């Protein structure tokens, strides 16, 4: 997987690992080419009185930051940059114009990319090219982020150099789907950037278009005691398994994977992925009764200390945990907490409130849900439960088999620009269950249907559907 033999190329714990110095473009002098004083007095190319207002206030100002990039570029030599020096200045100029006119100044669409792939780059052209030539071409490059968005500074500095040498030096960290985004470069730099990314950083580009988009994950077992499966390993594995589907659009529309380690949903898979993997468990919540007492005694702050900014009074386990449990399956007898686990829906509340006393079960896997999407076209959807529990152990063959069936069916049956959630809605969840070869279960619904417009298969009905009116008339003359 990855570039063979290079899976640990950047690992600082591995001898002979690659460093920033091995691939850097800019020298230290080029990087530190301005003083704080110069930055304070810096006047960008265009006047931007409205944007300047957004330099005030405490929250980090994107305007101040882009100005810093503009100054840095101004002090580099022109042959230290492959796209216009003024790109950051012109971006501010164009956005200022949009602030005045209250309309965007980017032209519609733009189809650009790299050979061999059908996605990963979003083309964009200014409609004010004479005024702002620096952003005449201003394409974004999506780069597949590492799991959990963990980085070493060596690798990240390499990314910065490519981004500044061949692009605008402006990024999104990160796009909503998860990618690192180079915000702004020209068409002639797309292939050179791709070669640098793959050859020097050892990273591929992300997805765009009618394909598998870049999968993303919560940080899972790296730093969370709630994680019920290895989100980072599975996200990486699935990303590598489906590289072809990610890079070469072959689907009716976009398709997203997201991996949440538990039902808290820190990467929002239930709302933002066509196929949501959400960790869960099937045995008992693990209880440390001594720690429960410490919570009651006020020795441990409730909810991991997340509520300490306000005086909520003493911790009241009856009111805050027992009575807030959605299934009322908990009991506190004044000395011990007990949980009727057969009635628990694993909502996480009690564990979230007392993470030092309660732990997720030890027999762990994930639930599989399908079909989340934003409103266009048929309305927003959350993902709906299809597989209640499945073990998630590398190499995840059991899960891949299910996912493959779903994708193959949607690729065959889906209409142009129809998300899988809309297809399931159009043909009914029952049809989808047939596709997956799984029986129906009450857990698939919030409630059974209230209208009686039910389909039956002919094979389910004694005698079938072929009938002769003459037979009927023998019993019921017209």
């Amino acid at each position, binding site marked *: 997987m*990855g570039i063979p033999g290079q899976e640990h190329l950047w690992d600082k714990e591995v001898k002979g*690992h690659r460093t920033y110095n091995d691939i*850097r*473009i800019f020298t230290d002098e080029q990087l530190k080419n301005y003083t704080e004083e110069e930055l304070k007095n810096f006047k960008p190319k265009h006047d931007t009185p409205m944007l300047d207002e*957004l330099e005030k*206030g405490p*929250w*980090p*100002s*994107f*305007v*101040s930051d*882009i100005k*810093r990039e503009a100054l840095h570029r101004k002090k580099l030599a022109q042959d230290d940059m492959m796209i216009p020096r003024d790109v*950051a200045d012109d*971006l501010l100029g164009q956005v200022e114009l949009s*602030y005045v006119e*209250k309309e*965007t*100044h*980017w*032209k519609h669409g733009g189809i650009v990319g790299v050979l061999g792939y059908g996605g990963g780059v979003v083309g964009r052209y200014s409609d004010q090219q004479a005024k702002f030539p620096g952003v005449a071409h201003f394409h974004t490059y999506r780069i*597949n*982020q*590492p799991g*959990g*968005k*963990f980085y070493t500074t060596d*690798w990240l*500095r390499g990314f*910065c150099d490519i981004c*500044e*040498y*061949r692009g605008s030096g*402006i*990024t*999104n*960290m990160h796009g909503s789907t998860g990618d690192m985004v180079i915000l702004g470069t020209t068409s*002639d730099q797309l292939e*050179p950037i791709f070669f*640098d990314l793959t*050859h020097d*950083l*050892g990273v*591929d580009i992300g997805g765009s278009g009618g394909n598998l988009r870049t999968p993303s994950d919560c940080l899972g077992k*790296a*730093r*969370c005691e709630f994680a019920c499966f290895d989100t980072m390993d599975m996200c*990486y594995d699935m990303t590598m398994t489906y590289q072809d589907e990610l890079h070469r659009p072959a689907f009716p529309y976009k398709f997203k994977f997201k991996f949440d380690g538990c*039902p808290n949903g820190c990467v929002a898979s239930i*709302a933002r992925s066509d196929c949501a993997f959400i960790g869960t468990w099937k045995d008992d919540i693990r209880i440390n009764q001594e720690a429960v007492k410490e919570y009651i005694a006020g020795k441990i702050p409730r909810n*991991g200390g997340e*509520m300490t*900014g306000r005086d909520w009074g003493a911790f009241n386990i009856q009111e805050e945990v027992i009575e807030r449990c959605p299934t009322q399956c908990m009991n506190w007898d004044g000395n011990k907490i007990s949980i009727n686990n057969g009635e628990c829906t694993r909502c*996480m509340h009690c564990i*979230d409130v007392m*993470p030092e006393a309660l732990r997720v079960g030890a027999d762990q896997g994930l639930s599989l849900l399908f079909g989340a999407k934003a409103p266009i*076209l048929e309305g*927003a959807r*959350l993902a709906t439960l299809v597989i209640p529990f499945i073990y998630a152990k590398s190499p995840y063959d059991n899960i891949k088999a299910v996912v493959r069936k779903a994708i193959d069916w949607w690729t065959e049956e889906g209409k142009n620009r129809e998300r899988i959630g809309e297809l399931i809605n159009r043909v009914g969840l029952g049809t989808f269950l047939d596709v997956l070869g799984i029986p129906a279960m009450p857990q698939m619904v919030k409630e059974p249907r209230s209208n009686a417009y039910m389909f039956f298969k002919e094979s389910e009905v004694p005698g079938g559907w072929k009938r002769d009116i003459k037979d009927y008339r023998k019993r019921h003359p017209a």
Partner: protein
Amino acid sequence: MSKGKLGYFNPKKPMENRITDCGPQRYEQFLPPVIRKNYGKWVSHRILEPGLLMHVSETGDKVYTVRCGGARTMSVEHIREICDIADKHCGGYVRWTTRNNVEFITDSEEKAKALKKDLDARKFPAGSHKFPVGGTGFGITGIVHTQGWIHCHCPATDASGVVKSTADVLFEHFTDMKLPAKLRIALACCLNMCGAVHCSDIAILGYHRKPPIVDDKMIGGACEIPLVIAACPLYAIKPVTTPEGKKSVSVNYDKCMFCGNCYTMCAAMPLADSEGDCINILVGGKISNRITKPKFSKIVVAALPNNPPRWPEVTDTVKKIVDVYASDAKKYERIGDWAERIGWEKFFEKTGLPFTWHVIDDYRLAYDTLRTSTQFKFTEQAWAVSKTVGGI
């Protein structure tokens, strides 16, 4: 790395030396040593103070994480400063969160506190924080947002500017943990809703209010007309032939609700408009399964003016909702949980937001959102209806 216009790329032999399908960098190599050692071994965590988390492993190890705000749109100069900080305090490791905050991980509380101090002291020349520490617990963390006028062709508003304005107004909640529950804010600049707008506690949404203008001259050459017709959720678009004999489309203004999806499909149907475009506010969505099931956000304000550079009407409205929720909701209640408990009529009464006909659903499954019950609470708006018909 390569230098020069083409770098390693040889346009005469474009497929030569091309590496494809190598995927992302494998994650283990980017994990700080203490994280690798305790991977999958964590037993509990605690937030020691705003922005400072501690995780405890079964090995006895502890890690301390300092979280700070990020503007999401950031220059490489900013990332390099993040790298400098990570080199100085964290052995050269850093990560980002799913809400675009930045996290620095250390193995001691002293190091974490020194780091926190360093981060809070760093400011841009004009005065804004570069790395405000916070975003943990029951407060307001980074606002998930989109491209806006910085990079997209179909927005009805800007993203970065509205977010900056809102985050400034709510800044005290980023650095403190005094709300009844987590409060997630998201922004999308059109109703494609890239990101989390449809499932956030408070969502800010750019919205058009004028039908598209059909560019008859351009459409035949630029657009696949059946795709344009199929793009409309309300079947408002029909194929027509213009008097000049050109293929085009017509838009039934009575059926168009300005979603902009036809423009997404066809450059010849622009609809952005400086006077028409506005901002909606949605509330009550959530993603977690905690206590209650995940919920969609609901529209509570149909149109606020698009008023750059500070969008005061938007920030005032958001702040008002946050303030009323903070003083009225019970512990652990998300905004949606609170609004459902008190009833939406009370939500409108307490927040003072006007309820207008726009926010009554009229799309397909609208019926499910109407009140098929006599259970309601009396408010001024109920008396207004009674008065209108001489009821009182």
